[in-house]
């Protein structure tokens, strides 16, 4: 069975909500839309206080001549204010607040359940698909939130060969992608075909880990009608959902060290959620304003998967699952390996919110730090072939040139090293410090060289 070739760990899967069908979450009273929900420049609000909006109305325009994308309202109602909000990243962002009134959709959106296949729209050109994806504000929905239309237009020196769909969902607890495949398999596959056409490639792969046998079976059956798309069963191992790891696992090619892009080895990676969003945008004219979110945790009464409108506060979803448990808890936006701990549960669901995970204080308490015993388990676990013990120690000693020479910028911050460390050392904390500093130094040098 295929998997990536270097490192990896196997955290307890804890897919508590895997058997829970997707439920439609209730509409919030006030929806909040941060303008920076993607990598790049934040969108510019294009509504004002008092404006009436419908579901699907554009409220944020992409910043021109920059990596940016649009934001759409997920609710109908009145703009309450244009202000700022602290979102799941912990940073303050410009945001549009909308008071919800009813549920009136833009007429242009096709709300029927009818499947639209490629055969019904043979006239679609790659450029039209990319344009629609761009105008729908679609970003990578696995969590990185890179604007999808940019990914579909690689620099001219690269020729994409494959579209690889990331259906790995290697983060423990999360089941949003799993449920989406089970419930919207046909739509996802049309989405994959659209992505393949847009990227002008003839081969598509869907990488699924073996811990989702039902999804593998269903997708393989459905692929009988889509001969260009192949389901690849992958051995369950973290961080297989990392872009570089997935390419290595599926097509046995390794993306060179940063700043090389995945497309330099011919692969374009898209998340399943993104493929579904592309289907809806192109075939149903529906911009990206809702997504599947897993709300889970061992203390929750009812772990669930919700089809959630963007802008819904996380607290509302947690209430719908039985509310926060007593005592100290950690609320994590995303999975337990790479998710961010939240300082405020009122933060809105955004394009990249794959899950809300609630863990008790005891579950997440870090063990007492002990001296490094040089067991080399971090070296074995690192999927990038780095030496975490060395990077962490040297970062702690502020040896920035040394860590740069030891390829610290290749670190994908997956946390495998810290997960596996028997001495409970804060390896990734220190490596992040080193990586951020080195990146700043590199940028400063580039600026100096330009002058």
């Amino acid at each position, binding site marked *: 069975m295929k998997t990536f070739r270097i490192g990896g760990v196997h955290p307890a899967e804890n897919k508590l909500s895997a058997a829970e069908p997707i439920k439609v979450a209730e509409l919030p009273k006030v929806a909040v839309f941060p303008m920076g929900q993607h990598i790049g420049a934040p969108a510019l609000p294009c509504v004002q206080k008092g404006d009436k909006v419908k579901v699907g109305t554009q409220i944020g325009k992409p910043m021109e001549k920059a990596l940016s994308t649009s934001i759409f309202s997920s609710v109908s109602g009145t703009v309450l204010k244009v202000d700022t909000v602290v979102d799941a990243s912990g940073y303050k962002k410009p945001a549009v607040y909308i008071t919800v009134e009813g549920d009136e959709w833009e007429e242009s959106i096709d709300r029927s359940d009818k499947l639209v296949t490629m055969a019904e729209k043979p006239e679609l050109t790659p450029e039209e698909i990319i344009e629609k994806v761009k105008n729908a504000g679609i970003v990578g929905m696995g969590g990185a939130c890179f604007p999808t239309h940019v990914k579909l237009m690689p620099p001219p020196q690269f020729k994409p060969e494959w579209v690889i769909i990331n259906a790995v969902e290697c983060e423990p607890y999360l089941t949003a992608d799993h449920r989406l495949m089970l419930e919207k398999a046909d739509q996802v596959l049309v989405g994959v075909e659209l992505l393949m056409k847009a990227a002008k490639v003839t081969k598509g792969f869907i990488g699924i880990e073996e811990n989702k046998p039902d999804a593998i079976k269903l997708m393989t059956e459905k692929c009988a009608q889509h001969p260009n798309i192949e389901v690849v069963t992958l051995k369950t191992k973290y961080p297989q959902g990392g872009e570089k790891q997935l390419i290595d696992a599926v097509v046995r090619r390794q993306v060179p060290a940063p700043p090389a892009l995945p497309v330099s080895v011919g692969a374009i990676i898209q998340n399943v959620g993104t493929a579904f969003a592309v289907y809806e945008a192109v075939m149903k004219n529906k911009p990206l304003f809702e997504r599947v979110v897993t709300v889970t945790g061992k203390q929750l009464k009812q772990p669930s998967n919700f089809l959630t409108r963007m802008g819904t506060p996380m607290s509302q979803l947690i209430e719908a699952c039985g509310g926060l448990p007593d005592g100290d808890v950690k609320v994590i936006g995303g999975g337990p390996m790479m998710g961010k701990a939240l300082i405020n549960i009122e933060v809105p669901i955004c394009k990249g919110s794959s899950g809300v995970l609630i863990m008790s204080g005891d579950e997440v308490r870090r063990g007492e730090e002990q001296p490094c015993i040089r067991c080399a388990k971090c070296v074995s676990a690192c999927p*990038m072939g*780095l030496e975490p013990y060395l990077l962490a120690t040297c970062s702690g000693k502020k040896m920035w040139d040394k860590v740069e020479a030891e390829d610290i910028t*290749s670190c994908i911050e997956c946390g495998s090293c810290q997960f596996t460390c028997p*001495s409970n050392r804060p390896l990734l904390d220190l490596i992040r410090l080193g990586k951020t500093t080195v990146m700043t130094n590199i940028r400063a040098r580039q600026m100096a060289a330009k002058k």
Partner: protein
Amino acid sequence: MSKLVVSLSPHVHSGDSVQNNMYWVCVALVPALICSFIKFGVGAIITTAISVASCVFFEWAINKFMLKNPKCTVSDGSAILTGILLAFNMPSNIQPWIIIVGALFAIGVVKMTFGGLGCNLFNPALAGRAFLLISFPVDMTTWPTPGQGFGTYLDAETGATPLSIMKAAFKSGNPDLLKELPSFYDMLVGNTGGCLGEVCAAALILGFIILLVKKVITWHIPVSILVTVAVFSGLLNLANPVYANPLAELMSGGLLLGAIFMATDYVTSPMSKNGQLIYGVAIGFLTVIIRAYGAYPEGMSFAILIMNAFVPLINNKFKPKRFGEVPAKK
């Protein structure tokens, strides 16, 4: 409203701990200890107990009185492990005060002087043994013969070991002396003289399996040592029959004990897989050289100590294969 805990990812941990690894190594050594008790009697248990107790005592005392460290490091289990391994490298009929001197050197000089767990350059138990071997060569090289009853301790009768037979054969140039070597079955179950932990090959291999299954160590170091010794001593044996055959080399002396439990010591072995292979090959090579041409019949411990000194260099030179450096292949 409950309090929100905030920290950086990852938010979960494997649950592995230093103690876990140390205690599993101790568990993996238990079969060899039981075997040693059966062959050499209660002396094996007494020697091990004295060694463990003195290692733990010295670490505690140095922490408390010299370093004034409020956090005692004894509970991490490494001193216990050093104690067991030190005892395993001595004859079971050794005088108790010699054990205590060895423990003081191992813990006091080799481990704590360098900064305690994780900082020592040399394997404490092996350095302690080497110190004793040089200081008390007679006591350290007169080994009891097995099967003298469970009550045997200081009064044990001593005899030749497989390695001393091999050395004698090589020195005299008479391959017929090798016929006195015990049979492979005897070496497998421990019916030979030697240090208390090294004689029973089967028990040590069982320990190896435990360590592999519990993922305490990987195969790289032990296998590279064993393969190198087998190949190199096999070549010598083909060239000249005064050298013992490779299987006897593998199963005699401290080779298995060293390859499985000593060379794999986390602190004093290389970090990358290719570094570990180089380290293993070098140890195997040095062991055969020392066994054949050195002054002592036993080469494993010196080979490991020599290579310990090269570990920082190996770590610097042999990096793990970085992701993405492989040329694109279909």
